[in-house]
């Protein structure tokens, strides 16, 4: 799964990982793991992140060919 979370953070006033984590109510490590592609967030967290960053889940995450 490809993630645009890092890009969306920068589009939102260059938010740090910690600030994004505080917005979503998770740890900084969770945000870092999502950005690295090591962790796939739950639907709930994906929706929260999308809402807090003024984006959509589709805008934040994309399936890659290898996922299908």
């Amino acid at each position, binding site marked *: 799964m490809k993630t645009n979370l890092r890009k969306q953070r920068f589009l939102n006033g260059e938010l740090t990982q910690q600030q994004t984590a505080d917005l979503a109510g*998770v*740890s900084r490590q*969770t945000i870092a793991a999502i950005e690295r592609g090591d*962790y796939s967030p739950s639907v709930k*967290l994906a929706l929260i992140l999308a809402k807090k960053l003024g984006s959509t889940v589709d805008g934040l995450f994309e399936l890659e060919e290898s996922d299908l």
Partner: protein
Amino acid sequence: MIKRDPIFYSALGIFALGLIAAAFQQNWAIVLLVGAYLLRPALNVLNLAGKYEDERQNQIHSRSGNIGFLVLIIGIVALIVVRTSRGEPGDELYGLLFVGLAARALSGLLMVGEPRTAGTVILISIGLLYLLFNAAEGLTLESLMNSTPGWAILILGLLSRKFPRPIALIVIALSLFLFYFFGLYKSEQIVVTLLLFVPLVVSAGCLWYRRRLDPEPAG
């Protein structure tokens, strides 16, 4: 990375108390020390961590907990083998092993979210295990007499599919009878209480519980 939130400071406080208790050579110091270590995973698993809960951390706790459980079970089995080879009794270790496995099975059944099915499965499992352990003692008149509660629980389990609520009441009555008959309130009976009384009460609760989406028994 250590997450510094109220749960961290609570655990730190409990740990400090444990150290003080250990310094005064109090046996219960170990409870506080282990409690401090398990505070966050316990709050997470019980959904009590609230806003301090982190889904990835939960996943890590769950996976590491599974590994810990597996290692613990392997360790207990290894100890039983060692003790048995030395001709020493391993009753307490067997008790610990079965309590761990039963707790895992019971919580797994409850997490499926179909309480009435879980109640029936729990009752049938207790009945079958009771009969199995009794049969292991040999086929004597005494063991046949002792197997009566096992048969009773098994039959109740089979009937609970059709009559969940009446069976729930009978199971509660049977549990209370066993509680007093076997003296399960005594501390030396803790393993029997955990393996027999607690699952019976849980199964009765499951059978009594009625969810709107649960299919009603026919007839």
